[in-house]
């Protein structure tokens, strides 16, 4: 510690060599790079802001401002070294956590995916056919880009030409119209090729939903030979934040991000809005969610506990057996025994799934109590697979920790006449637990979120009967969250999934903070200055 004072000085009063030693070209390069970064950021953030990423845009802006400050002020020199890593941490770790919390209080998910203006625009684009609306016959023409234009003939025989851009004019004003056929449609129009009659049916899906003619209302193709004058069905009333049905006069009120009429009729799509703690109350009170959730919640703890306990027990047993100084082949045995730990888990789990396969697997055909179909045996199976995957890690750490226990204690115990089992219970185990305790807690936290094994073993199955959400008997909270958000097959519910993420966050945070306290990791920071 003799050099403490010199290093202290170094930080507070930067030595002339480091702060003023920067040559002019170096400074110019730094300014140049910063300006380049700023220019790129402005362009990125600008576009991001207008494409629905305001929160992330703000985060990026703050991070880049911080980078500028750190690289422009000489007294912030130490932070220059930390800033690059910190920038990624803030953008891709801290902000996502905050964003998750925010999402948990919204109805974000299927039916509420697009921002409000987009939802309004989509609803407003719908049309209806007013009573007695004029109908037209139509002929399609395609331009070089593949866009379809229509030649329309109304009931009086007047003809119009409407292109896909919204231009709409009586046919006689359109230039480049060729000879008419028997039905009064031109054989050619300059810049267009006529779609033959036998391909009309094929073009129909392309035309669906497209409106020709003036913006309010316009003409829509309604059948193979008919097109009809339509009008805008819904109009947004910004003052009252309501959607008004132009046909019936029905008013749709904005109820938690969905325009809903008094009779309960809803307009899709909705848009994301904050809905308070509703996702959390749903978990707590909705029986169809609460039932499976509590099953999964309890199983997550059982799973994490037994994962640690079983792997630790086997790993410790092995290391006790191998812990003999003159044991032959020790190195070779060790290398072979940790093979399961060295294989990527996604590969081993898939292999085990094959071995347990009831029709084909070498174990499954001999002995199959329902490795994937019976709730209890599926749990036994996934714990067994995890035992194979995890004991080698425990073997490694207990072997190391055993070496740390002094031989003298055992000698003393032997003199006192303590039996082997007594020695294990009173000496080995307590000392070992002190040494590897934090790692066991860490392992618990890891298995609490061990998605890979759970998902690859049986996709969380077998399914829990009667669950309102996709839930299985071996699902743990994280795999359940994943299914809610991405793979449910019943639509994504980001809000609910985020709410469950928060619950896991809290549990894992408590476990880990407890672990830090246990190891004094946080205190270490203060000591080691």
């Amino acid at each position, binding site marked *: 510690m003799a050099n403490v004072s*010199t290093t*202290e000085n170094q930080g*507070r009063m930067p030595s002339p060599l480091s702060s003023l*030693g920067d040559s002019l070209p170096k400074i110019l390069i730094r300014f140049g790079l910063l300006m380049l970064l700023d220019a790129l950021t402005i362009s*990125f953030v600008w*576009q*991001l802001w207008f*494409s629905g990423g305001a929160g992330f845009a703000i985060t990026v802006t703050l991070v880049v401002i911080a980078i500028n400050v750190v690289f422009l002020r000489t007294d912030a020199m*130490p*932070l220059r*070294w*930390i800033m*690059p*890593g910190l920038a*990624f*941490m803030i953008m*891709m770790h801290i*902000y*996502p*956590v905050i*964003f*998750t919390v925010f999402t948990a209080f919204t109805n974000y998910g299927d039916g509420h995916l697009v921002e409000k203006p987009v939802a309004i625009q989509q609803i407003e684009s719908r049309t209806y056919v007013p009573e007695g609306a004029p109908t037209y016959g139509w002929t399609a023409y395609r331009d070089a880009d593949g866009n379809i234009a229509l030649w329309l003939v109304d009931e009086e025989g007047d003809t119009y030409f409407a292109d896909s851009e919204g231009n709409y004019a009586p046919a006689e004003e359109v230039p480049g119209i060729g000879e008419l056929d028997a039905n009064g449609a031109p054989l050619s129009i300059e810049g267009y090729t006529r779609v033959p009659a036998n391909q009309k049916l094929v073009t129909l899906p392309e035309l669906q939903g497209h409106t020709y003619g003036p913006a309010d209302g316009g003409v829509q193709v309604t059948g193979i030979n008919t097109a009809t004058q339509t009008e805008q069905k819904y109009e947004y009333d910004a003052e009252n934040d309501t959607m008004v049905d132009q046909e019936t006069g029905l008013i749709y009120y904005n109820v938690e991000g969905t325009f809903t009429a008094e009779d309960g009729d809803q307009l899709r799509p909705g848009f994301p809005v904050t809905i308070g703690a509703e996702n959390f109350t749903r978990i707590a009170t909705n029986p169809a969610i609460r039932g499976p959730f509590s099953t999964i919640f309890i199983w997550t703890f059982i799973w994490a506990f037994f994962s640690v306990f079983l792997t630790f027990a086997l790993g410790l047993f*092995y290391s006790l*057996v191998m812990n*003999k100084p003159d*044991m032959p082949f020790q190195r070779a*045995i060790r*290398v*072979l*025994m940790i*093979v*399961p*730990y*060295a294989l990527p888990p996604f590969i*081993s789990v*898939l*292999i085990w*799934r094959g*071995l347990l396969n009831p*029709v*084909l697997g*070498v174990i499954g055909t001999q002995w199959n109590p329902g490795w994937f179909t019976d709730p209890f045996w599926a749990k036994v199976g996934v714990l067994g697979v995890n035992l194979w995957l995890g004991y080698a890690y425990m073997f*490694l750490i207990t072997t190391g920790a055993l070496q740390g226990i002094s031989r003298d204690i055992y000698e003393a115990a032997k003199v006192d006449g303590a039996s082997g089992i007594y020695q294990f219970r009173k000496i080995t185990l307590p000392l070992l637990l002190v*040494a590897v305790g*934090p790692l066991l807690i860490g392992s618990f936290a890891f298995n609490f*979120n061990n998605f*890979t094994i759970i*998902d*690859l073993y049986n996709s969380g199955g077998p399914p829990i009967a009667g669950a309102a959400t996709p839930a299985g008997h071996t699902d743990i909270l*994280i795999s359940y*969250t*994943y299914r809610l*958000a991405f793979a449910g097959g019943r639509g994504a519910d*980001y809000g609910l999934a985020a709410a469950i*993420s928060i619950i*896991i966050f809290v549990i*894992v945070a408590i476990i880990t*903070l407890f672990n830090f306290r246990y190891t004094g990791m*946080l205190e270490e920071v203060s000591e080691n*200055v």
Partner: protein
Amino acid sequence: MRNRDRLDTAWRLAVALLAIAFALFPVVFIFSAAINPVSSLNTTQIIPENPTLDNFRYMLDNPQHSFGRWMMNSLIVSTITAVLVVVLSAFAAYAFSRFRFRGRQGLLKTILLAQVFPNVLAMIALYLILQQIGRVIPLLGLNTLGGLILVYLGGAMGFNTWLMKGFFDTVPRELDESAQIDGASHFQTFYQIIFPLVRPILTVVFILTFISTYGDYLLARVMLSDNKTYTLAVGLSLFIGDQYGQRWNQFAAGALIGAIPTLILFYLVQNQLQSGLTVGAVKG
């Protein structure tokens, strides 16, 4: 006494044999399946009658799936991530180890606390963020390797910085001081003096990051949605799906190829790993 000792060694060896059998039994079956021309999981013979390398050839050549591509994607993503993680956390560790500045402790704690929240739990947010980024920079959006690497870099600091800082602290400061008296800049000091001395810990962090990135299934599964961008974890799991009957042997060959990178790395760091794990364990 000699006899008792021999007996003692004998039963320990017997247990070791059983342990090795337990450890290797699935691996043996995978080998067997990989060289077996007949597609069946349930062969009684460990060495099939007509061993063949066709399954390996099928996995590497067949254009219908993209095993080679997945393998490549995994290697690309894991290598780039590991390199960047080492660089980012080594820079930070250098600063934390060598400079005393205001907010140092707070920052160290913040970095550690951020790790309390595993980023897999923020997968929904990360998914939505990549979706937003992708609208502006398609190369870093959803379903791109760039986007996936970006996600992994969120966890670059954290424990790695701590691990490295501990190691950096053991390098005597007199070394960099004398270098700086000779006129070396901080970067020169870092690159020419510290870097060669801390290479072991950088190697360990590189390999551990590589292995964990290579083995990640969840985030890759969430972010990637196309056969061409899958990493091995996603591709291989979808390849086998429920088709154990038809694809077991090909899968076995793929699994063996896929396990090679981590097996090699594990073998290389085996010793450092054990001492690293136990040093962490005994500290406290």
